[in-house]
């Protein structure tokens, strides 16, 4: 129960704790670093949810090299999931070279997945914003746009079409 004074404090939002999901917010200084949301009925295993949410945070640059992941104890205290699940997810992230355990200190981010090309002020994002606006003007709803995007992604990635060879 003894917490080092510099250990990040974890706060529970009681509203988030009711029902089949819960939120963990890790506060470093005053900025939230990562927040795991466990959906019990999503069909995705709890361990996969932690892996995916960590990668998402790495892609968005919310987690950066040197950041400390919450300890298994901190995660399970607020999400009420099995601690072995958290350790398994962290081992998977370690196998992929994204995080590293430092004995006695915790698990730390080694590598970011953020792509400068996808940055908030980058041209790719600006193009996409323009395209989404165009789709809305054409009368598409949010779901229509998401379905179209998913379909195009599937076509371009799963059928082996390489970006260098236009149809």
């Amino acid at each position, binding site marked *: 129960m003894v917490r080092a004074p510099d250990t990040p404090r974890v706060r529970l939002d009681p509203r988030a704790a009711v029902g089949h999901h819960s939120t963990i917010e890790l506060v470093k200084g005053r900025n939230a670093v990562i927040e795991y949301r466990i959906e019990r009925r999503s*069909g995705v295993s709890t361990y996969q949810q932690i892996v995916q949410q960590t990668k998402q945070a790495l892609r968005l640059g919310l987690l950066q090299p040197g950041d400390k992941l919450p300890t298994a104890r901190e995660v399970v205290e607020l999400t009420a999931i099995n601690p072995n699940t958290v350790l398994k997810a962290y081992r998977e992230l370690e196998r992929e070279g994204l995080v590293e355990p430092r004995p006695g200190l915790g698990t730390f981010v080694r590598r970011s997945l953020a792509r400068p090309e996808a940055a908030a002020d980058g041209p790719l994002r600006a193009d996409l914003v323009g395209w989404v606006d165009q789709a809305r003007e054409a009368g598409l709803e949010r779901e229509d746009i998401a379905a179209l995007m998913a379909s195009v992604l599937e076509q371009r990635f799963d059928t082996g079409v390489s970006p260098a060879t236009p149809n």
Partner: protein
Amino acid sequence: MDDPTTVPPALEAVGLGKQYRGDWALRDCDFAVPAGRICGVVGPNGAGKSTLLGLAARLLAPTEGELRVLGEPATAPELRARVAYVAQDKPLYPGFTVAETLRLGSELNPAWDDEMAQQIVEQGELKQRARIGSLSGGQRTRVSLALALGKRPDLLLLDEPMADLDPLARHQLMGTLMAEAAERGTTIVLSSHILPELDGVIDFLLLVQRGRIRLAGDLEDILDGHQLLTGPAEAAGADALPAEVLVEQRVGGRRATALVRTGEPLDGPWEGGRPGLEDLLLGYLRAPAATGPGTTPGEATPMNDEVAA
């Protein structure tokens, strides 16, 4: 987590049985729960879950067979300090206040962690001067768990711990239990009727049905070793699926659903995949216990592999 090869199992039963006035509540139970696991004991009413926990807590003596707890014979006196048990009816002294109850815990347990116990009581906003007899069922559950966790046990046995708690208290206390397991490697064995409550929490399963152990093993291994199949109704029939793997099948409208005990693909117009915990348990609970695989403990059924694993 400790190396499982050097740490004895938290619970190890060999031919364990318990008879009450001629009726066997449990019989021919062989299983081992490794240390450091969160084990769910699941089964219908009267299946023998409470008897199993009572034997592990040494409140009951086995009629036959042997039970070892944390590597010791269940009768070893030194286990008293290492095992905590919360019974289904949460027996506490109704005339005591909350403060007096925790004081009793601190007097009776040499390794008492008062901070832990106080924190659990405070989280529920219980008044120190409130009499146990004036508390609601859920509040008494909270005091019982404070006593059990304050003891800092190596093995925590909980019989239907969450039944009378509101969703917030259930989530808080389950979080506290999981944090304790994460920090100290405490083995937790809990029985429950509320199947969704166990999903994401347990990593080891004991399925008890009519006094027999129907499944025992690592939860991921058990789920990998089953499939939930759906197919056209015509596909379901007496010989459609091999009897040695079929746990349960049902026909609803034009579709048939079957739970089978194999991870290998089967011939036929079936599609499906790995079941969820709830699918698995409901399949077994619906199936008559007298049929299907793994009903005869002691024989060379796949169950024994899981027990040994």
